[in-house]
């Protein structure tokens, strides 16, 4: 007898979430291969509703009886479930599996790492290069007593290059990376070229301007701006009353140039999926269109509390990944997409004339993120003068509020979006009204 069938002997409804994560990871340290790891992790989570009360339990491995008893015990002391499990029907599938990724051997991953080390050392012999590569699949199966079963196998391929340039009195640490679902979308040469560009730009340290100079966020740097929005547009933050966007649907909260979409169904998007971790079909969900607040994203619980429809945004895991089967679902973005404007990063540099470029920050999420405030050390940043990159800045902090910057300070949105953090497809953004403090 299956676990759901056994669950229904004590519970009126139940839901099983099962994931099998299979990965091969290769790690280079100091320019040399250090380890190869294979992971095969089976995780399960069971939700049950008993006498109207919700229970949850999770486990790794095969212990079905333990999982069932734990979920039932949780329900005994749980609260009334605000939602019902949806009927599961396979809708139109999104392309999320590239068989080619499965065929990539450890040797091949190793050869990509070697090429990255070789190419960077050739131009910068003193730079220490660490590389991490990973390929694998996540097989998800959801089944519930409202009927139906959904399964999906999703591929993932990632490469990260960390370059450390250590000279007397100066350490320059650079990280570039990509996470994709499709082999064709990971071009190691592009990543290497990006690392080389930032190393060249960063060879010399120059003083940063103080005050409120124009700030150009590279695609990776825009995380400073979109991370607080991932909290602000969350249906749960709205329900809890902590989102500054609460009650502002239809309002012009941002600059007209700003359009933000939560794309659940982009073919091979790194966070695309046919259904969310509660079995609700995903969608294309505009969050802001031409600066006007359009939608919030909801899981089953937040939707029930807000009297809204679930948006296929019930994700098990944290904002920038992690968590998985051990975490009950909560509302989260799939692929967050900022609609591009025009011009490359270089065009925006020429346009801004003077200012700074923020390519990476330290201390993401620290500070009062719910209010939209950010305050970060610029981990990788550059100084622009006369429309040209003059060198790297150090010991510099940026601070501001996303809701102000994207309303009154948005100068330009570039036209060359990139995938960053495995969850966002974003162009460079030129902004004003960001405070810059430097030593």
């Amino acid at each position, binding site marked *: 007898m299956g676990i759901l069938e056994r669950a229904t002997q004590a519970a009126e409804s139940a839901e099983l979430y099962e994931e099998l994560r299979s990965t091969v990871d290769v790690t280079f*340290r100091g*320019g*040399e*291969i250090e*380890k*190869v*790891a*294979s*992971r*095969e*992790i*089976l995780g399960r989570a069971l939700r049950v509703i008993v006498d109207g009360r919700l229970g*949850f*339990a*999770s*486990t790794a*491995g*095969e212990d079905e009886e*333990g*999982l069932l008893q*734990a979920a039932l*015990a*949780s329900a005994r*002391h*749980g609260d009334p479930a605000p939602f019902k499990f949806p009927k599961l029907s396979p809708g139109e599938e999104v392309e999320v599996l590239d068989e080619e990724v499965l065929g990539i051997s*450890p*040797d091949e991953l*190793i050869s990509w790492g070697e090429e990255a080390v070789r190419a960077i050392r050739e131009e910068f012999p003193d730079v*220490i290069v660490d590389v991490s590569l990973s390929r694998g699949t996540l097989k998800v199966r959801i089944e519930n007593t409202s009927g139906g079963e959904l399964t999906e196998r999703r591929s993932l391929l990632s490469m990260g290059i960390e370059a*450390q340039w250590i*000279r007397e009195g100066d*350490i320059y*640490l650079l990280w570039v990376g990509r996470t994709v679902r499709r082999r064709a979308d990971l071009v190691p040469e592009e990543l290497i070229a990006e690392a080389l560009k930032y190393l060249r730009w960063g060879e010399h340290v120059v003083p940063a301007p103080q005050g409120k100079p124009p700030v150009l966020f590279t695609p990776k740097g825009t995380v400073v701006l979109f991370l607080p929005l991932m909290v602000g547009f969350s249906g*749960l933050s709205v329900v*809890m*009353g*902590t989102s*500054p966007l609460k009650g502002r649907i239809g309002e012009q909260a941002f600059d007209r140039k700003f359009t933000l979409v939560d794309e659940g169904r982009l073919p091979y998007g790194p966070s695309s999926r046919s259904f969310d971790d509660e079995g609700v079909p995903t969608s294309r969900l505009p969050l802001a269109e031409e600066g006007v607040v359009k939608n919030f994203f909801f899981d089953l619980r937040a939707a029930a*509390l807000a009297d809204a429809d679930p948006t296929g945004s019930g994700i098990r895991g944290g904002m920038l990944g*992690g968590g998985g089967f*051990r975490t*009950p679902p909560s509302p989260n973005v799939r692929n967050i997409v900022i609609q591009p404007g025009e011009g490359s990063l270089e065009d925006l540099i020429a346009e801004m004339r003077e200012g700074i470029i923020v390519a990476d920050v*330290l*201390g993401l*999420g*620290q500070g*009062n993120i*719910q*209010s939209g405030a950010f*305050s970060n*050390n610029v*981990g990788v940043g550059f100084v622009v003068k006369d429309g040209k990159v003059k060198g790297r800045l*150090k*010991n510099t*902090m*940026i*601070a501001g509020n996303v809701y102000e910057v994207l309303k009154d300070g948005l100068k330009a949105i570039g036209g060359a979006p990139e995938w960053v953090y495995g969850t966002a497809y974003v162009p460079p953004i030129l902004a004003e009204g960001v*405070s810059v*403090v430097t*030593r």
Partner: protein
Amino acid sequence: MEAELQEALRRCSADYAEVRWEELERSRVAFQRDQLMTLERSREAGGIVRALVGGAWGIAVFTDPDEIPQKLSEAARLARAAAHKVSDPIRLAEVPPVQDKFLPQLENDFREVPLEEKRKLAEAYNRLILGFSPEIVSSSVRYTDALRHVIYANTEGTYLEQAIPDVTVLLLAVARRNGDVQQAFESIGEAGGYEIAQGLEERAEAAARRAVDLLSAKPVKGGRYTVVLDQELAGVFIHEAFGHICEADFLLKNEPMRKVMQLGRRFGVEQLNVVEEGYIPGRRGNAPYDDEGVPRRKVYLIKEGVLSGLMHSRATAAKTGMEPTGNARAVSWEHEPIVRMRNTYIEPGEASFEELISGIDHGIYAKGAFGGQTEFEQFTFSAQYAYEIKGGELGEMLRDVVLTGNVFDTLRNIEAIGNDFQLKGGAGGCGKEDQSPLPVTDGAPHVRVRDVIIGGR
């Protein structure tokens, strides 16, 4: 399990191999405002094997214990695939094999406490926060307990069993006035029994009071300040800014960084002593034996202002000709051990708090850690709240205080060290590579630092 593990290891063809099998029993209760978000008591189990062949590691992670022999072969095969590419092979410092059990008796074993009671405890704290003021609009109260039972064996004859308890409580309040939202929290984490989570009513109210007070606090003006850090923040500073660069794994194949981190190099004033310690009764960062089966050693990272030790795994110890310190830790069975901190602290000095703030004409007293991150010499961390210091006296409450700097400059700029030492384990943990959150403890007395950059508008 001992016989099976040793038999599997005997048959393994690697130069060296180890198996770690973990069983975890845990409970979690989480409230967000009026919603019970999580109520769970469950178990999980999983394992990892690691094989060294020709100076490269192969690793396999799994959830079926019957597969240990196959996983050992797989790890050896993966190591072999990498080994022929290696020119600077990994070696392991020698340690004597040990057979030991470290299974502490919990006085008030949280596994015996009904889940219902844990729920009631968290709910009571949550009610205190929500009822504190009409301006409190939301809350987050989280209780967790876990007993991590670890069986470890390697091909050198080491066999260990350890049980590591961990209890955490997070008490977070969110206040709102007009459009402004502020939050404050108290965070508790210790290695012990259920008593750690009890009796925290005053802490819950303190979080709520502070969230409300922050609504009236002034945003800090960015600039350079002399800053007095409270014990918690000074502890986070020493962990984030300095501790991480004393983890010898990133020096392993990094000649330039090894030159920067030369033992004997002066990093701070004579009064500065920084310690890394594997076992202090009741502390979260405890690792009696690390996840390579190495017994703990207490390390002075800084003694009298001078760099005098680093944290090591067996590989980094062999590379640098040092002794392993027992710092190779893994966050769970899903991961291999890497060099991590345990209990890390600045030893107390002699200054009283009044002496620390007196003489500061225009400075900041920063309190409570919000978070932090480091990238070698650059670090950043944020205070939960702060006060102005004017003419040697505490003034108005400040908010949005994020500090940043260069660790070497900042250590040199430590001017005075207080006499009011405190150790603190929070509800969070430390993150490194993809392993988070690892239980750690930080500690320090109040510390005064000049020339700290504070971001702000």
